């Protein structure tokens, strides 16, 4: 099999997949969980419990508020202690439902065994309803409500389903582990999506740095109709939605449009596994796999209950916090630093990257050499140094021509810059200023 890749730009980075061979283990249960009502793009879910209510694992806590929203479930059994606003780790206040844990009692109807269930219900509408009810959102990081992606609007069609198993962020290994340990479940999950979309053409795209996952999925996929495995080159950002569509199908998402405009639907591997659990095992989304990695002695992959405070994850792994300089939610390329350790793991937390003090400083910025390395690196074909010039000189009207709104925030430009100019920051400012300008007009 020849490895595919996208056409423009991209960078080679050291992937540091330290925990690639560490089995997923279940993390101990915390005494308190903080479950945010908004773990997705769209409207916050409406809270349907009150303080003092007894809940079990899998009890619905908050209901989707419209289509652009998602249900939120309890991840532990116990009592609703508080409904409060806490720092979400990035400095914003966020409404959370605080639950004091007592024991570990599950709602009825969930199948928690390892038995594989291969037969899929033959009812599109019902399948979509189950996924909607289970509160599934894109678990790769964006948190886009999954039912919307699979509910194809009038006049559009999907001919290819791409299951994203690239995981191009350094350090993170959740998708890689899931593909090795839950290979068949992922393939059945893919077939569920095939059925909903009414197609027989799914491609599971995997980075060539995960040969075990490729071999395993390839072997199992042969037994099923409509599921293929494709190896992709280990270039960042191969796992970007637009890049992956281009790598697999050769198509390009037109500027300002959605993947569906290329007749493609893209789903992350972890999302597909959650779909399998929801549909075949009646388990709503209340836990996920999280990689704990970085400059630590024992990088690992945990199955974590959603709402678990990050401080608890770090404490359970005996991380010496006094030497830690930076904690990142996600990977080091696109992840966000965390200021409050009480911030919880959410549906979209794929990993926690811990950096020691000495690795936590930004390098000093020097003069731009006009070397063009950022131009070569940009996977969208933009010219980050020109965007920087426009932003620095307040020439915001030029930003439209520079297509700053097409920037996918991958950070390749900042990474490669020999002068260590924070080019991505300028792109973010540019996006903001341009949208402000366009709103005014």
């Amino acid at each position, binding site marked *: 099999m020849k490895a595919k890749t996208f056409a*423009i730009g991209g*960078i080679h*980075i050291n992937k540091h997949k330290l925990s690639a061979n560490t089995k997923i283990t279940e993390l101990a249960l915390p005494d308190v969980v903080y479950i945010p009502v908004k773990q997705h793009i769209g409207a916050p879910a409406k809270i349907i419990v009150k303080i003092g209510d007894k809940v079990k694992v899998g009890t619905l806590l908050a209901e989707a508020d419209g289509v652009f929203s998602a249900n939120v479930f309890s991840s532990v059994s116990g009592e609703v202690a508080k409904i409060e606003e806490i720092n979400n780790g990035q*400095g914003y206040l966020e409404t959370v439902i605080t639950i004091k844990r007592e024991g570990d009692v599950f709602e009825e109807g969930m199948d928690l065994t390892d038995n594989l269930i291969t037969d899929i219900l033959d009812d599109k509408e019902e399948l979509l309803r189950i996924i909607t009810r289970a509160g599934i959102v894109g678990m790769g990081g964006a948190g886009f409500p999954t039912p919307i992606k699979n509910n194809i609007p009038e006049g559009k069609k999907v001919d290819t389903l791409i299951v994203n198993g690239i995981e191009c962020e*350094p350090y993170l290994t959740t998708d890689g582990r899931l593909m090795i340990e839950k290979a068949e479940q992922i393939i059945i999950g893919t077939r569920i999506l095939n059925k909903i979309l009414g197609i027989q053409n799914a491609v599971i795209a995997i980075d060539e740095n995960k040969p075990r996952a490729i071999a395993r999925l390839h072997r199992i996929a042969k037994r099923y109709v409509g599921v293929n495995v494709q190896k992709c080159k280990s270039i960042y950002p191969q796992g970007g939605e*637009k890049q992956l569509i*281009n790598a697999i199908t050769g198509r*390009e*998402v*037109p*500027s*300002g*449009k959605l993947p569906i405009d290329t007749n493609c639907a893209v789903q992350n591997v972890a999302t597909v596994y959650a779909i399998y659990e929801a549909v075949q095992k009646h388990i709503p989304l209340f836990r996920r796999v999280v990689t704990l990695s970085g400059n630590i002695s024992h990088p690992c992959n945990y199955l974590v209950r959603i709402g678990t405070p990050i401080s608890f994850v770090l404490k359970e792994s005996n991380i010496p916090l006094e030497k*830690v*300089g*930076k*904690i*990142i939610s996600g990977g*080091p*390329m*696109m*992840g*966000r*630093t*965390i*200021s409050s350790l009480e911030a919880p793991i959410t549906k979209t937390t794929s990993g926690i*990257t811990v950096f020691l003090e000495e690795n*936590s*400083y*930004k*390098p000093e910025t*020097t*003069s731009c*050499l*006009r*070397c*063009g390395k950022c*131009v*070569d690196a*940009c*996977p*969208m*074909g*933009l*010219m980050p140094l020109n965007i920087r010039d426009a932003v620095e000189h307040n020439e915001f009207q030029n930003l439209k021509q520079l*297509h700053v709104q*097409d920037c996918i*925030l991958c*950070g390749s430009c*900042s*990474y*490669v*810059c*020999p*002068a*260590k100019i*924070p080019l*991505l*920051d300028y792109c*973010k400012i540019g996006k903001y200023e341009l949208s402000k300008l366009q709103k005014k007009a």
Partner: protein
Amino acid sequence: MFKMSTSPHINSKQTTQTIMRDVIVALSPAIFAALCFFGINALIVLVTSVSSCVFFEYFLSRRLGLKNNTFDLSAIVTGVLLALNLPATMPIWMTILGAFMAIGVAKMAFGGIGKNIFNPALVGRVFLFISFPVQMTTWVKPHVLEFFNLDAATAATPLASLKHLTVAEQFNTDYLSLFLGNIGGSMGETSALALLIGFIWMLKRKIITWHIPVCYVGSFAVCIFISALLTGSARFDVLAHILSGGLLLGAIFMATDYTTSPMTKKGKIIFAVGCGVITYIIRVFGSYPEGVSFAILIMNAFVPLIDRYFIQYIYGTGRK
């Protein structure tokens, strides 16, 4: 309290300083060749040029209130390149003047590293070439490995011989000498072998891409080849033209200067072909035997224009 910052949280190890260090490493075979062939004279020019470039960089950045970038090693690169573009017998004061033109006028007056329009080392060289034509075209015979041989017997450069060749004559320098560098010429331009080793090093370290050197030499070779076909004259000896004069030094080290070359691949190719064609025109039709410096400087002036009109294809905008 932990550190908060925007993504990405990791950066490549390549900095301006490591790039310049790699360029100096890439230049070291050429420096070695210059010392082998031209002995202590070469060393004097080299030390003068480098030290005065570093001095002007440091002094002027302080005087002009610019950020002090002396330690990014770029002034050393300019100094080495200027020295390699001079004959080994260059008087010291002229070398210092050339260094001032390179760093002071071409670089610092424009605002320092990254802001200059013209390649500093080439500005220095061309200034000296026009001001002191006699000293700049007095080529000594190389003395292989006789370090203290100060005998300054002059030698004609192969390019000058080529230029004055009549149709009936044959070109009679052996290619091996041209390749190794045992010929008259500027200190650093004579040994094609040393320059090619530097080229491979820079490609391997991802300092430059192949586009400019290959397209420059390629387009120049095609022009010479067509002339040879049309005239049948021994003047148009493709291999001799490539191996002699400043073509390889210019194509590998001068035309690829980041600041004064285009950013996109398309732009780089157009820039390099322009350099190749202008070099051909000057070498064949002009009054000078050599045209590399002028060709690169002329194309330097077009870089802002090239950068403006030959931009990259942007994803999702529809390929035409």
